[in-house]
């Protein structure tokens, strides 16, 4: 028995030595990239696309394997990421503010501090849209209608209770002192169908999902939930311009478990930066109109921290669950 313990100790020391030596020639083996959503979803396609270019720019024959761990609105995959070995061989995509919301409502087994942010890739602001035949031409008209008949004007959302879109509607209710009634469609396709078929008076979406429908004149944007107008859609006004200071959107970024050596974080951060600037990737992203928004590890961390603080404030006033 004692021999076994000794052997174990030797092995542990030897393994420790290997892992400390390995950050110099990182990556020495395939890197797992956890995606907390099913294959074919927006996050999955983003992950598989960037993984190819990160491999190229990490060098030394780097391999990245995308592993889908879907379920519970991302919670299963993010728990797996938070509890993985912090050796740099497990990274994953996280989606703020959905992930922060789970932490703030104290549902998740992880805290935001359990993650080491590496880089943000995408920022997609939220928007409020109406059908082309809608009587509401401006945000003010819709808000006035909701003020006249509280709880009767419906806003369709693709999310579930507690999703970032739902939280945006709660914030809108608070900031504009109205009562819009959220209808949860549970997916992007059904809510699009409902707004195009004029079955609901208004809906929330992310800007990138709506660009083409707006250009075709099928739907109108009443407001973008962002500090400034979007370069993709210059004539769409922001909420802020219309007197409601609502800023909400969805991000996609890469994180690792807390405790990954700083030089590995730097390598990964650099690989994302280079991948995002790879001409072949840029061309595909431009064609697909992906709202790229690269943030380095420390900037990304600041954004995540701000989202958590904001959500904590919202949770105190209007809990979403």
């Amino acid at each position, binding site marked *: 028995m004692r021999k076994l313990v000794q052997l174990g100790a030797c092995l542990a020391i030897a393994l420790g030595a290997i892992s400390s030596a390995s950050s110099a020639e990182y990556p020495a083996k395939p890197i797992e990239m956890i995606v907390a959503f099913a294959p074919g979803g927006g996050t999955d396609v983003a992950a598989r696309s960037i993984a190819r270019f990160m491999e190229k720019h990490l060098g030394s024959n780097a391999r990245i394997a995308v592993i889908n761990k879907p379920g519970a609105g991302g919670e299963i995959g993010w728990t797996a990421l938070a509890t993985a070995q912090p050796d740099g061989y497990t990274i994953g995509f996280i989606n703020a503010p959905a992930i922060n919301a789970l932490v703030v409502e104290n549902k998740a087994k992880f805290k935001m501090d359990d993650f080491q942010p590496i880089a943000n890739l995408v920022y997609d602001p939220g928007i409020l849209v109406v059908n082309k035949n809608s009587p509401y031409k401006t945000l003010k008209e819709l808000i006035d209608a909701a003020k006249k008949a509280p709880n009767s004007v419906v806003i369709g959302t693709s999310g579930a209770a507690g999703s970032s879109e739902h939280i945006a509607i709660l914030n809108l209710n608070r900031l504009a002192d109205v009562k819009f009634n959220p209808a949860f469609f549970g997916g992007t*396709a059904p809510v699009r169908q409902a707004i195009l078929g004029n*079955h609901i008076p208004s809906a929330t979406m992310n800007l990138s999902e709506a660009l083409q429908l707006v250009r075709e004149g*099928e739907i109108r944007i009443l407001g973008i939930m962002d500090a400034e107008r979007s370069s993709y859609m210059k004539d769409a006004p922001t909420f802020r311009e219309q007197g409601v200071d609502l800023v909400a959107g969805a991000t996609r970024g890469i994180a690792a478990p807390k405790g990954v050596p700083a030089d590995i974080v730097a390598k990964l951060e650099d690989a994302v930066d280079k991948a995002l600037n790879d001409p072949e990737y840029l061309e595909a992203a431009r064609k697909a109109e992906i709202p790229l928004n690269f943030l380095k590890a420390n900037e990304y961390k600041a954004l995540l921290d701000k989202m958590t603080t904001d959500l904590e404030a919202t949770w105190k006033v209007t809990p979403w669950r």
Partner: protein
Amino acid sequence: MIDALVSALPHVLAPANLFAVLLGTVAGLVVGALPGLTVTTGIAILIPLTFGLDPLFALGMMAGMYNGGSYGGAIPAILMRVPGTPASVATILDGYEMTKRGQAAYALQVAVVSGVIGSVLSAISLILFAPPLVKLSLLFGPAEFFWVAVLGLATVSSLLGEDLIKGLIAALIGLAIGTIGQDISTGVERFTFDLLPLADGLDIVVLLTGLFAIPPVMQMIEEALKVGMSGDLLKLRRQGSVLSKWREFMPIWLRSSVIGIVIGILPGAGGSMSCFLAYNDAKRISKNPESFGKGNPEGVAASEAGNGADNAASLIPALTLGIPGSGVAAVILGGLLVHGLRPGPQLFRDHPDVIYGFMLQMLLSAFLLALVGGLAATRIFGQALRLPRIMLAPIIMLFVAVGVYAVNNSMFDLYMLLGIGLVAYVLEKLDYPSAPIVLGVILGPLAESQLRLALTISGGNAVAIASSPISMILIALTLFVLVAPLWRAWQDSRKAATA
């Protein structure tokens, strides 16, 4: 449109692009035939690899994979009672029974021909009628979807089997399973026992595989222990040709294809609903409804034609409005976007070569499927059945376990698979049918969520839910489905009385 088709044709027939369609069809067959690996996954992996390629090469592979995968799912469904994809579940009901009777080759032939006919009709409707069909689909809001689900539940009556009570209990089990998971409107977790993997409800692939694939494996082991090895029940030589009986199959092919196309256009319903509704319809109009579920080739034909017809039709709202009619259509939409092809009328205006080319590729891949699926794949996969049962059982078990694990990379799913399999085995021993369980699981949550949405939108006004013309038509159809058998029974009894 004719001009666009003519000018797209040379691009489609370019050797490289032809090869892409062929490659996609073969890959789709393999992906579809492996449980757990779905066409959605296959195309998702494909997209990043197509970045630098010619759009028609990339789209050709996707078109091939879509049609190939939808038939691929039928192969293990017929041979081993393993649903290769959720959309092949209804094929099991008669297909596996035919295999047990030694008609595996005929069942596969019926499946491939029916699948091809469904896919071809669907592709033609995509090419010819996309704009008017999309207007029709927009008439469906939450209230109308609720009535579609109710209609589907009403047709369950034709699946109940001989023992009405047992069939109804099975349907209720399905409805109960459908309530598991987080309620999206309130966030309340129902019957999840604080288990995170249950928050989204039971995974449909895990459930279907457990329900259908595990009981026959146990049966095989049981029989092998009883009588020792006996395995060559299954002959693969020629067993008649479905083409020579085309007159009998034609009404089923047409009706099932129309059902598949309509369900395909509606988002959120998906292939498993198309195949079941087509199957129920074929059984309802059949002169011998009692022969369904016992190896009637018409059951296989209806399910596969419905399944095949779902494919191209689900692309209609995807291409014209950006609303994917199915999970696969959603991924294909992603694939179009990375090539700068944005859905909408301008897609047809600005890139007619590509978009009409893609539609032609959907048609082409349906024909290639007849070749690849009918000739090669059927023969190759059929060989698996030559194995003695005592060996086949553990091989199927391994095949199913790997497939189910691959869906979510989760051990929990494997435990669920075994648990569901055991329960399903007991239920089968007690003669409870599995099909009503599946329909309950698929339609129950749809009916619930759409009813709540409809009531939220109408401000709690229940009358408003039944006020649109489409709702009224659906309600009338539901009543018809429910009342027609009673009417028939009453007439029969009157005839019997006067005779």
